[in-house]
């Protein structure tokens, strides 16, 4: 089985978010970048398929040279080979088009991406990629088993979960549940050393439709002072008469 994990390079979850250039760009100053958490759950599940079922695992990222440290981390976790598509990611639609080229040329059985990236929250790359490559698609996937060509998966739904059957080739939008938080791996020294020697190829982008453009950003208005209630009586009164939410 040949697996491609699509990795997005995103600000660490603890990052404070600021904008620059007249609020038209995300301010990367002082921001630590990491593997998008939803992608990392997918990558870790892919490692399981590698170790238990002999899968080969490649990764792909759309971005300039600055994304390479994040890609090396994915290689240190255990991916075998990496592809960087050398263009700045602008919107989900064009990112999916770039990745579709890698998928078509690589003959992958399974492609895993995160359900959404935690920066631009588009949530569309895996689904558009599945459509462009004519593969099955399961989103918000929280459990994935593969036996030959047959797929058994569970996806999250509002208020519960749904068990699905499908087949390879398949694209999955992954998230926590594919593996547990405690299954995530911190690269060890041997992994880091080996990652340096693994192949990271740089591919030139194909022409793609740019569907959307983030023109300007702003931050939520600052919150007013909290009102502390002395008793539950006062709290219920405030919620009923002032906030009018009960």
């Amino acid at each position, binding site marked *: 089985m040949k697996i491609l994990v699509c990795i997005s390079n995103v600000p660490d979850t603890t990052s404070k978010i600021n*904008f620059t250039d007249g609020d038209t760009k995300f301010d990367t100053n002082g921001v630590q970048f990491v593997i998008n958490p939803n992608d990392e759950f997918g990558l870790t599940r892919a490692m399981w398929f590698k170790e238990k079922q002999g899968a080969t695992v490649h990764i792909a990222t759309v971005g300039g040279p600055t994304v390479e440290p994040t890609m090396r981390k994915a290689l240190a976790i255990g991916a075998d080979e990496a592809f960087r598509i050398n263009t700045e990611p602008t919107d989900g*639609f064009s990112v999916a088009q770039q990745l579709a080229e890698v998928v078509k040329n690589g003959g992958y059985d399974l492609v895993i991406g995160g359900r959404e990236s935690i920066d631009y*929250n588009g949530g569309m790359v895996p689904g558009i990629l599945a*459509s462009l490559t004519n593969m099955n698609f399961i989103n918000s996937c929280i459990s994935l088993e593969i036996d030959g060509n047959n797929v058994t998966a569970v996806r999250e739904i509002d208020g*519960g979960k749904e068990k699905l059957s499908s087949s390879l080739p398949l694209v999955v939008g992954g998230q*926590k549940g594919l593996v547990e938080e405690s299954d995530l791996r911190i690269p060890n020294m041997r992994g880091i050393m080996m990652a340096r020697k693994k192949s990271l190829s740089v591919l030139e982008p194909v022409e793609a439709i740019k*569907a*959307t453009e983030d023109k300007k950003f702003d931050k939520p208005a600052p919150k007013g002072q909290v009102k502390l209630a002395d008793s*539950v009586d006062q709290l219920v009164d405030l919620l009923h008469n002032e906030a009018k939410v009960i």
Partner: protein
Amino acid sequence: MSVLVYTESEQGKFKKNAFEVASYASAVAKMMGTTVTAIAFNTTEGESLGEYGVSKVMNVKDSSLETFNAGGFAASIAEAVKSTDAKVVILSSSTDTKYLAPLLAAKLSAGYAPNVVQAPDSTAPFMVKRTAFSNKGFAHTQIDTDIKIVGVSNNAFGAHENKTEVSVEEISGAADAATNDTKSVEIDKVVGKATIADADIVVSAGRGMKGPENWGMIEELADILGAATACSKPVSDLGWRPHGEHVGQTGKPVASNLYIAIGISGAIQHLAGVSASKTKVVINNDPEAPFFKAADYGIVGDAFEVVPQLIEKLKDFKAQNG
């Protein structure tokens, strides 16, 4: 040319977000000087969309589409877009809709802006405000394609009555041309209980509850309020509560009218995930807990004392106010 809205239903009945997205579509149609057509699947109450500004309902009657199927639903919606020559498609932010939206975007070569929080800034160019950076910021996103898809954030726009004469027509579903052999095997879903996605009130608890055996009072409080229960990331990682309850940056977003956080200190990732909630209440014994800075109301006190008192008080309150 019209605005097309996909209104979700369950066993024939519209979900709450159907009226919100219909209202949103109606606002967009007004800006563009056109009308709203809705597409629904096997609904029995199509006419009710007329209350929210929809003038035509296309009800897909198809036994193969009785339960949600992302590929089949996306194909049918794409057909409706073509037959009505719609240039703008309005969707909700439910998990099912976020499953079909990218498939629809690919079929229509349409730009898709999800998590939109208010009526478009403008329709020419088409610009919408949406949450980004997991609710830590907003992006004003311009959609440049001929057909535009807008996903409306839960509970951001609200339902607005706007009585319109409405006609309902039955249509058949479209076959999904793409390879699609993904099938539902089994659905495991809590019935008759509010979900985090559509609840007006969410009661959420964290590590301050000390252990899963203490969740009885959280569930009781939620029951009295008709609320959904949620939890912080450490609680779900420890296995005290199911993953589906984890709210925050890497969990589910919450956009309820009232969010009650009990024994949750308020890590930046958690605050981001719940920031779209309108009123936030914090109960925590640590007055320095960061959550107090992001809350509207709070009580500094031990959850094991405050929550039982709150339950008793709300029982009385409900008895008096119905």
